[in-house]
């Protein structure tokens, strides 16, 4: 190994490149043991992993310490994974790693996370911590299906659900902006309040019966032509309307935040409210709008859960998805594309967990913890620290 590093340094490959190559090789080491390659001997994976480790060590010696060690870690995990895969049945592997179905599942599970994360970005970029995403999402989940049921229209259901989330966002905004409450306390209150409100109205209105089965559902979009293409069709040919909306939201929000006057204002209010104020920007109003919109978006994620994905509601059905959305925001460094990457990663891990019981029931459960572990690793700054907006959590007082 030392020989290879010496040789490499003579060649003069930049450390950064070597690090990324190491990471790529580490992933490849795992990938070759899976369908469609399905190499049934660990030797190939171990060789690739060894190369990855070499690249990682080289990178860490040449200055990219962190990146290098990440590459080494991924290589070791990849090799381990490959050994496990090789020792598992081929049939099991093919059942679990049906890639097109996995991608479809990933997008399904990522949709509420994307909505929630985009909402979280809006609120937090304006300087207001929003750990009430979970509650806002839950509001959307219940009032979405409630509205769709009462008004007999999925579109009106979406509207009602989104409005309920916006309303809760407004409460959070009022308490944390106007009354200058601690935003984390207020967010906690929002979560518990939403749990009570949705549970109360749910049981009051539907009793033990649960929501009816003939709720109008948000339709899936069948792409003519694409649907029949072998791999792509299965993966994205029949996605839900709201999934498309969520994916579309990401570039829209990016353009809004970084290419429009409104977005610049929103960010400046979150970074340096005093400066923004002295330029005549309405700090409080901007934050109000951002937090309310945040509630609306998070609720859209909940609406997706109830009237698009499942077609039913049960108490506390978001079950932590709002917190995973928050995790995606942090994971993505408060940037839309980064948060999308986080949401897709977490969605993928859920999709994989859904299929893992073929191997082992309990391992599948353990997979659910992955998003939280990864986020913990990210906030701890092991893999590139993510930096929050400067004025986050600080109530603004006009002078």
């Amino acid at each position, binding site marked *: 190994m030392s020989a290879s590093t010496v040789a490499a340094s003579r060649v003069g490959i930049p450390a950064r490149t070597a690090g990324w190559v190491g990471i790529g090789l580490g992933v490849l080491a795992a990938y070759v043991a899976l369908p469609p390659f399905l190499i049934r001997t660990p030797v190939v994976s171990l060789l690739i992993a060894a190369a990855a480790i070499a690249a990682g060590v080289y990178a860490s010696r040449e200055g990219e310490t962190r990146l290098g060690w990440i590459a080494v870690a991924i290589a070791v995990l990849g090799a381990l994974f490959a050994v496990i895969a090789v020792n598992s049945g081929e049939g099991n592997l093919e059942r679990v790693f049906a890639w097109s179905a996995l991608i479809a599942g990933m997008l399904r599970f990522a949709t509420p996370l994307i909505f929630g994360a985009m909402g979280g970005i809006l609120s937090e970029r304006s300087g207001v*911590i929003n*750990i009430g995403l979970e509650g806002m999402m839950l509001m959307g989940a219940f009032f979405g299906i409630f509205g769709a049921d009462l008004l007999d229209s999925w579109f009106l259901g979406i509207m009602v659900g989104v409005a309920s989330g916006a309303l809760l966002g407004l*409460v959070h905004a009022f*308490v944390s902006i106007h*009354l*200058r*409450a*601690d*935003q*984390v*306390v*207020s967010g*906690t*209150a*929002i*979560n*518990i*309040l*939403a*749990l*009570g*409100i949705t*549970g*109360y109205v749910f*049981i*009051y209105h539907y009793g033990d019966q649960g929501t009816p089965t003939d709720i109008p559902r948000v339709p899936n979009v069948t792409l003519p032509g694409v649907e029949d293409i072998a791999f792509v069709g299965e993966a994205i040919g029949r996605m839900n309307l709201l999934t498309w909306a969520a994916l579309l939201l990401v570039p829209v929000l990016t353009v809004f935040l970084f290419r429009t006057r409104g977005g610049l204002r929103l960010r400046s209010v979150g970074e340096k*409210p*005093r400066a923004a104020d002295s330029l005549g920007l309405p700090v409080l109003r901007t934050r109000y709008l951002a937090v309310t919109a945040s509630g609306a978006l998070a609720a859209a994620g909940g609406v997706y859960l109830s009237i698009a994905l499942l077609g039913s509601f049960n*108490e*506390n059905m978001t079950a*932590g998805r709002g*917190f995973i959305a*928050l995790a995606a925001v*942090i994971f993505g460094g408060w940037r839309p594309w980064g948060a999308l990457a986080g949401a897709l990663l977490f969605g993928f891990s859920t999709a994989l967990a859904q299929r893992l019981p073929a191997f*082992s*029931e*309990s*391992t599948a*459960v*353990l997979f*659910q*913890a992955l998003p*939280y*572990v990864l*986020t*913990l690793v990210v*906030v*701890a*700054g092991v893999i590139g*620290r*993510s*930096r*929050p907006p*400067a*004025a986050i*959590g*600080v*109530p*603004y*007082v006009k002078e």
Partner: protein
Amino acid sequence: MSATQEPEGVAATPASRLAAYLRGGGVIVPLLTTVLAFLAGGLVMLVTGADPIATYEAIWKGTGLQWLFPWVTGEDRTIAATNLQQTLIITTPLILTGLAVAFAFRAGLFNIGGNGQYIVGSVAAVWVGSSFADMPSLLHIVLAIIAASAAGAVWAAIAGFLKATTGAHEVISTIMLNWIAVWVGVWLFSQDGPLQNDQNASLPVSNDVVEGARLPVFWGDPVLQGLHIGLFIALFAVIVFWFLLNRSTVGYEVRAVGFNPEAARYSGMNVGKNYIVVMAVCGLFAGLAGALDVLGWQFRIATVDIQITFIGFFGIAVALLGRNTATGTVAAALLFGALLSGTSQRNLDPTVFEPSLAANLTYIIQGLVILIVSADVLVLGLIRRGRGVFRRDGPARAAAPATSEPEP
């Protein structure tokens, strides 16, 4: 989140400011908060066609608190006694999870991870309690409690450690640790999980805590879930909490860091170490809560229990309403314990009000309590500004940062 600016400048200040305010204000504001929240709860009942007065009366009956009145006699008294036992059984962990949040607040930290610490503690307790069947009873109980407290302490200390070393915000890390605890806990007891029941491989539940490791029941029928001695352990923890904060060097440093981490650092205190110690103590309290529940009345953990437990989150409301003081926490824990048991399936008369509705009502009331407490920061500030002077503890209050935004 850079290590230099984050812990002292942005993050610690709002929490410490809140903590400072919360300690003032006497009992009037918490009482007012409670009344307001209950009034709002009554309004909800009224809107949904229930009689608030009759419902609150039924909930009151369900709490068993009328046992305290000597004129309640005969069968009423017997029923009240069993209900009160339930109330106190729930109050016990609430006191401890309340302390877990309150202690952090006093140090300017927000421990939102009480739930995870509670879960980790209960897992450790059930594991120790269901192993070593031949161990002497007292030793077994003590060992299980120590294991649970230690597990909770270590779990919470992770957040303190991350804050001290990397500046990771404790709110985020404790939220993540909560969910990691949930899923690891579910994994342990789910089918083919490592700690899943030995007798029945299809049940997602732990082994039973052996007889010897169960806490003795001192009031009521042990078979019908009487009141276990955990209550006294919790009350003892309250004394420890008070002593630790007010009469020890550790407590002095904790409060100093809570008031102003920067000043504490300049006076030579190790702020980072302080974060770790504070979180560990918090986790110790919450882990102990888990142990007392498992050894006192649950005796086993099902994966469902882990997923729906809310005791740690209730601790936030308990601490906030109790203004992070020892006595306040006990009073608030009793209030929420009474509310929980008064609205439980077991205690609430279903002909008056549907218990499953009432359970959600407690969430609404609890949420409102937290919301009003958080909002009354302003109210309190105004009261204090109106009075102009600091009352009891003088200059220390002055050290608490005002509501103005700290300029970097």
